[in-house]
């Protein structure tokens, strides 16, 4: 059985939940033989500065629905990093927005990959799509979900009329990751 626990963190308005949705949708609908469960925090507590989505991806039916020890973290704000990094497993893969996050208290086994997603998004004309750049980067660095599956999920998840721009953002992030690797 191969099950991966992932945590997406950032501040409200960055599209953190959407990023998680895209990965979950890609795995469970567009990839082959994968299951995904997404949970998120709700209520006034969830509207604060650190907002998160949790995704479990497995090649078997997922039973326990919550992420307890994330193995992959995608972090888009310092506060999310401070709050969620301590929950991670010792050898977690940590994917960060370079200009927004300075990882602290990293454990020796952790692998950190950074991308200046905000700048790349600005170069593409919309700062708003930094989450999709991050999703592209995430896809390249983790290899967890098939690239084409994530592209399809991006297309299915973003507002009508913005698909092209978002796919560009995805590709930009993905390519950045491939070059890094």
């Amino acid at each position, binding site marked *: 059985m191969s099950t991966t626990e992932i945590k997406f963190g950032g501040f409200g308005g960055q599209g953190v939940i959407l990023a998680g949705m895209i990965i979950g949708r890609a795995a469970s609908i567009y990839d082959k033989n994968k299951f995904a*469960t*997404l949970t998120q925090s709700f209520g006034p507590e969830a509207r604060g500065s650190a907002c998160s989505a949790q995704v479990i991806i497995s090649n078997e039916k997922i039973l326990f629905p919550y992420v307890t020890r994330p193995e992959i973290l995608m972090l888009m704000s310092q506060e999310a990093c401070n709050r969620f990094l301590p929950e991670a497993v010792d050898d977690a893969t940590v994917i960060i927005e370079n200009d927004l996050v300075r990882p602290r208290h990293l454990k020796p086994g952790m692998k950190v990959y950074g991308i200046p997603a905000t700048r790349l998004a600005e170069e593409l004309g919309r700062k708003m799509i930094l989450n999709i750049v991050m999703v592209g980067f995430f896809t390249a660095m983790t290899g967890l979900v098939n690239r084409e599956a994530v592209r399809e999920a991006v297309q299915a998840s973003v507002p009508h009329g913005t698909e092209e721009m978002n796919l560009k953002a995805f590709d930009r992030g993905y390519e950045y990751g491939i070059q890094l690797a």
Partner: protein
Amino acid sequence: MKADPKGVLTGAHFLDGDHACSEGALSAGCRFAAGYPITPSTEIVERIASRFPQVGGMFIQMEDEIASSIAIQGAVWGGAKAMTVTSGPGFSLMMEHIGFAAMLETPCVFVDVQRAGPSTGQPTLPGQADMMQARWGSHGDYEIIALCPNSPQECYDLTIRAFNLAEEYRVPVMIMMDECVGHMTEKVVIPSPEEIEITERRYTTAKLGEYRPYFTDGEMVPPIAKAGDGHRFHVTGLTHDERGYPVMSPEVQEKCVRRLVDKIRLNAERIISLEESETEGADVIVVSYGITSRVSVKAIEMARADGIKVGHLRLITAWPFPEKRIRELVGRTGAFIMPELNYGQMFFEMQRVIDGKAKSYLLPHGGGTVHKPEVIYRTIKEAALECRPQVEESAW
């Protein structure tokens, strides 16, 4: 009858349980919903508010849950398939109208996305402590049906089933979701309309002037009429005779209420749906429902890896309770374990049925999250050891 294609979003979706429930209602032919916002059920009515106008349906946000729970019943008597949606505090306010629906035999659906209680409790976190309220919350004697989905896919599937059961038996049907299932997002496959079986409302064929609303013609469930069809019928929450007229005699009370109870009790085996795994020959059986059933399976897998013969019985219908099946298993199984997000509700129903003929273990939990599988696993081990003390623990 097949589903009306207008409401069916055929395809694979990544949906949370709340939204899946809305889609289930649309597929089932529900075209009227009334509700009042309450976490964690609000997403259901939000999606309905956006989707219904596009398929010829009507959603109205009422002034409270009391109004919502009776507006749907007015809509049913006007010809609609209807539901209301709420969570604990709102469910409490709806109780009188569950009894009203039972008494008038109004087919309708109540969704309770359970959160941790009592009172305001933890609005954004799961609980399973409304299970007895669903069964007994309204005064007087009556029967209802309650379904417990454990995934967004089942939120979709069981919402359709709830509407079908409501029509078949003319009862209020409760969908007892929980915050975890309501807010978790997973793949939900919506079939094509031809693959969705819908139970049509059975309207009277009586000639005008001859319709008696509660004349069953030897069956358990009478045909219904709707306002405006010319039957000029009367229905009331008072104890009534076949004509629907109030009668204050013990004989009519007996006849009226007996049928409300019997139409479910005598059909229980047709209504009940269970999911079982390795229950035959099991030393221990975990009985669970809703989100807790998923955690239980994880614990069961751990115990089976140790060589323990443990079965799983999942209540897809919590009410009516599967008395017959549990009695069958009691003779062969030494212990029954029930984990639930309360301090004992369905457990005591199970214990009543076991009737001292096997051991029973309650795994209570106040809610706010789900059980840790390890906790259930430990109890399975403990129960197995007590049932078969001759087997050394080290043998596992």
